[in-house]
């Protein structure tokens, strides 16, 4: 059974990985910096590694979905990220995909006699 537990863990990880970008984008209607975003996402019950999130933010920005700006007036210089119009548009599409998928999977999961 120990094997089964390990397998479950890796499958859950895989499942969450697919939803990571959706969770991140969904929290960026308001601007956030790296660590504040981790807290925000964690508070909602989703786990995300700092080592995954920080590079991901830069990648999303490079893909043109986020805008970023430095705030140098705080005690530490912080880089804030926020969805831009292209990002918002993509998030809407991704959300509707997610909702559809959710319905389909729910259907699939109903056990037929």
């Amino acid at each position, binding site marked *: 059974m120990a094997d089964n537990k390990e397998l479950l863990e890796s499958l859950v990880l895989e499942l969450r990985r697919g939803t990571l970008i959706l969770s991140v984008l969904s929290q960026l209607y308001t601007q956030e910096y790296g*660590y504040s975003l981790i807290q925000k996402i964690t508070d909602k019950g989703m786990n995300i590694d*700092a080592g995954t999130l*920080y*590079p991901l933010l830069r990648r999303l920005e490079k893909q043109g979905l986020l805008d970023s700006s430095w705030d140098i007036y705080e005690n*530490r*210089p912080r*880089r804030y990220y926020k969805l831009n119009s292209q990002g918002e548009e993509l998030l809407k599409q991704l959300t509707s995909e997610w909702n559809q998928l959710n319905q389909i999977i729910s259907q699939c999961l109903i056990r037929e006699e």
Partner: protein
Amino acid sequence: MEQITIYVSEVIRYLPQKSQSEIKKELTTNIMDMVDELTAGGMSEKDAVITVLSKMGNPRLLADQYLDKKAYLIGPRYYPTYVMIAKIVSGAVALGITVALSVQYLFSTDASIIQTLVQWLGSIFMGVIQAIAWVTLIFAGVERFEEVGVLKHVDVELDDWSVKDLPKSQRNSKKSDRIEGLVGFLFAIIFLILLNTRLELFGVYMFDQGTLKEIIPIFNMQNASTWVPLISVAIAFNAISDGIAMALRNQTKNTMWFRLVLSVLSFIFFAYVLINGNILNVDLATQIAPESVELQNLWTWVQRNVVVVIVVANLISMAIQTFQINRFNRE
């Protein structure tokens, strides 16, 4: 706090130059935010740093995440190993070709030195290019097959990373420094042993019809007991300096300063012996060819200028060391 700086510098050293400073700033702030959160909860700063860095994981893997996947032939996981292997293989190929051609030249009766030199340069050029091409191909393959999963578990140590694996200070020495150190150290030791036990071997080997007739010493054998110990001390200082470069994975500012001091000491001894020691065999030219005035003149010139050459070489080496310390300070 120093550990954070080291950790961040370990991450960015694998990244393209243009994004380094941005990521450095951002990552440092993010890590410090995480540390602050833990210390606010009552944890000591030292423990908080260790906890956060452990959570962030191996710097090389984090760097991997920052890079766009597979936008490279050989990624940061394998790049350092790739460079090392490529250097070793190229060196071995060059050495092999040199040895083979030297033997060929020595034993052939009609080969001219120019012809052999041209052949040597051509062979080394082609040989080294081929060696690098093969190594590159193999590593690029490893990089791709890893994606397929064949080699997924090859580099296991990458995932087994802990804060203890972080270098003690910001990395400065390259692998090549260590290899240079090793080569220098070995040469110094061999030279020291020969100098002190078989001084007569340093000489011009005179053959008569294929048999060794005599070895005419390059060095002044009569007063050897006065200058050999001094030269030995000078070489020993160099050996220690090379030994440090060889043994240390990361040189700190202190070890760099220490090596510079050793170089200066070694230089002082060398210069003293060369200027006052009368260490060369004055009669070398007459002993080789009593009639040749050219050889006589050449040998006189060498005796006069060897001091200059060694002094200049030492000064250049010390200048490079000083420059490195300077660069280290700025980083």
